[in-house]
């Protein structure tokens, strides 16, 4: 039988992979992928504790969280597409208008 700490460890590994992606990658799409991985790890932790208690409110919050991150991805990709139209590149180091 699985224990809650097993799921916590899996979530921690996913979050650290996401941190690695955010720190190292400079491609805007990879950054969005890393953010998605981190958000999913958090959802996994909430559902694991919701099963342990057991309490339905954890699952309700996860439903809200999934909907919010879907909206976030839509806006993020929209911003990325106009940035690509301006700079002809999706490398975030090329976006230099906000510098200085």
């Amino acid at each position, binding site marked *: 039988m699985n224990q809650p700490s097993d799921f916590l460890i899996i979530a*921690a590994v996913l979050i650290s992979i996401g941190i690695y*992606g955010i720190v190292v990658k400079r491609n805007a799409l*990879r950054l969005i992928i890393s953010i*998605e991985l981190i958000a999913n790890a958090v959802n*996994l932790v909430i*559902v694991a504790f*919701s099963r342990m208690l*057991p309490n339905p409110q954890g699952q309700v919050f996860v439903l809200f969280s*999934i909907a919010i991150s879907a909206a976030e991805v*839509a806006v993020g990709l929209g911003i990325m597409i106009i940035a690509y139209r301006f700079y002809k590149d999706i490398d975030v180091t090329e976006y230099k208008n906000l510098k200085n």
Partner: protein
Amino acid sequence: MADAMFVGLSILTIGSAIISLESKELLYGGIALAVSLLGIAGFFVILDAPFVAMFQIAVYVGAVAVLVIFTVMLVRSPNTVTKRETVKRKISGIILSLAFLALFGAFIGNSAVSQFSFSDAVPAVDIKEIGRELLTYYSPVLIVLAFTLAGAIIGALALARREDIEEKNEPAK
């Protein structure tokens, strides 16, 4: 101890999460992201949350991963292949993520979380109960969430609109 299903799902999820960041082609990264999100949905099934798993597959695999793949196709090809990262930045990223992992592992090992356990005696959460929570106590949140989603979609559409081809489509006066 963890059972075989759990081990298989964790290898699938973490392996494809690494592939989604490290694959050279961005398109394969998007597909690997979809596989990783499917693995998370499998974890939700293990945790007796089939409704959340269904929602995860519908929203994440069906919408988010497909949206990422579509964006890869909209962007021209030299940008979808990763450039070489500097080794210094890569090493510092690995060190940072390992440090986070060690910190979190120390938290888990030293806290009371490691003594918690799932009990089969208590029944899993009923789907009807989730529906009741959503429509009674959390109904204002649901309405606000619906407006947030609609606002985000309209905002994304307005952002991605092109102004330069607008005059061409207008009827001649």
